[in-house]
């Protein structure tokens, strides 16, 4: 009876998950024609003036690389300003950036530590450009990234913000390789959400906004250490268009250890849930389109669905392992290779659904990789993502739910 109850809940959750995957799949087939590669034309009829703000706090190791990547951008120098805002670093960040002091494109600003959003806000106030964006000091832009974004702004006058495609910068560890595939998957899903006006985050690395966005809805404000998400939701609440420009690629450094990854993802997961709660008036409201009907409910309830499904799989896996342990302790370890008999190939309902989910997941990964790299190549990252992600993600999701329930905040680092 109890088992039937829990199975019932699981079936509902699986149905919802499958529904979403099918939804994205249909969107993919609708959008397929628009998933073009970079334009061969490297010239624009009009170059909007642009300011890129680089907020930094203790980024002495990476900030120079970030600035160099901005200076290499394929964009007219007189149209691009770079503001480096040192948010009260306690390391040598300020000394490191002094070597750019004489560059006419670059403005160096130092302020007392107040958090990333205060550094970005200061830069926005100082800027008179038509487009204003931000680039985290641990990220690096590709040469044509700004050109591609400016082209998108030129083509769509109603577009108020553009988000790039984020890819992992030089993955070394197993976790970074796992994140590489995760970012590819995320890139695919964001690209699908774009034409549906359902993007709920304008990530720190190289999201670019028209200046009038700030004039109309104000600057960044403190929002559970995920200010970029709050800002996107505020824009959506004002029905401002956010689009994903997948041809603009930005490389970002990712956590290399489990602890660092846990801290980062806890902040993201907690921030996502809290900001969604703050903007809950948009949930299930038709006037907010797919964002209200799918993205926001998924942002909040998705965590619970993920944890429930994980709990179910973990429960049954542990049960099987225990049974195997009892068998080995009773009869000893057998070295015999089990003979394959198709009779024992698992074809119960849950197993068949798992095969469907795995197939759809691989399809999304396949297309994510193609979107990012132009063609699909099997990598160890895909294997790590499939095997590891489901094991490590519950760590931060569980803690995020706990923090939301008991109103405990998270830290940046």
């Amino acid at each position, binding site marked *: 009876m109890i088992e039937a109850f829990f199975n019932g809940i699981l079936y509902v959750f699986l149905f919802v998950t499958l529904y979403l995957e099918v939804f994205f799949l249909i969107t993919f087939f609708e959008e397929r024609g628009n998933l073009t590669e970079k334009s061969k034309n490297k010239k624009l009829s009009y170059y909007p003036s642009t300011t890129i703000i680089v907020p930094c706090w203790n980024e002495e190791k990476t900030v120079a690389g970030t600035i160099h990547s901005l200076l290499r951008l394929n964009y007219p120098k007189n149209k691009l300003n770079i503001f480096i805002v040192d948010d009260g670093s306690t390391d040598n960040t300020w000394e490191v950036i002094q070597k750019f002091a004489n560059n006419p494109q670059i403005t160096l600003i130092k302020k007392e530590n107040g958090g990333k959003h205060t550094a970005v806000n200061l830069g926005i106030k100082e800027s008179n450009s038509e487009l204003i964006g931000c680039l985290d000091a641990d990220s690096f832009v590709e040469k044509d990234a700004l050109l591609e974004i400016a082209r998108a702004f030129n083509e769509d006058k109603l577009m108020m913000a553009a988000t790039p495609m984020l890819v992992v910068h030089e993955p070394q560890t197993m976790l970074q390789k796992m994140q590489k595939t995760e970012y590819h998957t995320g890139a695919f899903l964001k690209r699908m959400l774009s034409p549906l006006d*359902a993007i709920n985050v304008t990530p720190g690395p190289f999201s670019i906004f028209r200046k009038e966005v700030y004039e109309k809805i104000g600057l960044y404000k403190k929002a559970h250490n995920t200010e970029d998400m709050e800002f996107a939701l505020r824009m959506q609440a004002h029905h401002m268009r956010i689009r994903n420009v997948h041809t603009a690629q930005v490389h970002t450094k990712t956590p290399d250890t489990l602890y660092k990854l846990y801290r980062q993802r806890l902040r993201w997961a907690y921030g996502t849930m809290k900001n969604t709660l703050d903007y809950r008036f948009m949930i299930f409201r038709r006037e907010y*389109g797919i964002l209200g009907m799918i993205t926001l409910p998924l942002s909040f309830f998705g965590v619970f669905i993920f944890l429930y499904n994980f709990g179910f799989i973990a429960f049954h896996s542990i049960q099987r392992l225990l049974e195997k342990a009892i*068998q080995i302790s*009773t009869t000893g370890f057998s070295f015999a290779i089990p003979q394959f008999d198709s009779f024992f190939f698992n074809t119960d*309902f849950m*197993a*068949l659904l798992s095969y469907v989910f795995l197939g759809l997941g691989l399809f999304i990964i396949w297309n994510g990789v193609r979107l990012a790299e132009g063609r699909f190549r099997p990598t160890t990252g895909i294997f790590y993502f499939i095997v590891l992600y489901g094991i490590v993600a519950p760590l931060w999701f569980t803690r995020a739910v706990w923090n939301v329930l008991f109103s405990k905040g998270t830290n940046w680092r």
Partner: protein
Amino acid sequence: MRAKIETKKYILTFVITAMVFFGALLASNRFAERRLSEVKSIEDKISLDLLSSETQFALLKESSCKAIDHSTAFSEELNSLTQKLSYMEDNLGGENPEVLSLKKYYSLLQIKDSLLVKQVNEKCGVKPITIIYFYSNKGDCDECKREGYVLTKLREEYPELRIYSFDYNLDLSAVKTLKSIYGVKNTLPALIIWDENYYGFKSATDIEKIVPQLKRLREAREKAAQTKTATSTKK
């Protein structure tokens, strides 16, 4: 201007999802049916083999023991049938009417086989190594799972060993009669070896102590294997 919600797309997504979801449900039922029919066909084959053996036994009653096949075909298929039936029981549940029916049929075949083996061996003066095992999977027998592992291993190790397993709670008159003949108490797991009842978990070593012939069988097999290796090395 925000992208509008296309109701058609929502409905199409729902229809496709429902088709995949219920398609998986139907497919899994279909696979389960196929498995059940496979088990049924194995049982039918065993039944036929048994009938053949019985007839052979009746025909050759007055003849020499050499002419009688001591091992019925049943033993060859026993291992896989037990595993398959147990797998179906785990997947569809012990209360599933079809599983229950196959289990009853299987129990009857085991009883018939044990009787035939007994008759053949009485006539031919051979003492068969037979274990009758009573278990319960109603959650009231903690050690039954472990005993099952032990017997499965023994069966794999000694193909000569005949193990007949019965669900103590099976509602089948033949099984009830078997229980009353041997006076099996509801203290499970219960093993009957050479007409003597043993209750509680018995390890492989315990069973080998009760049946010393098993050890001898192993030694003989090991010796034969060594001789074979030695011969092939000489070549």
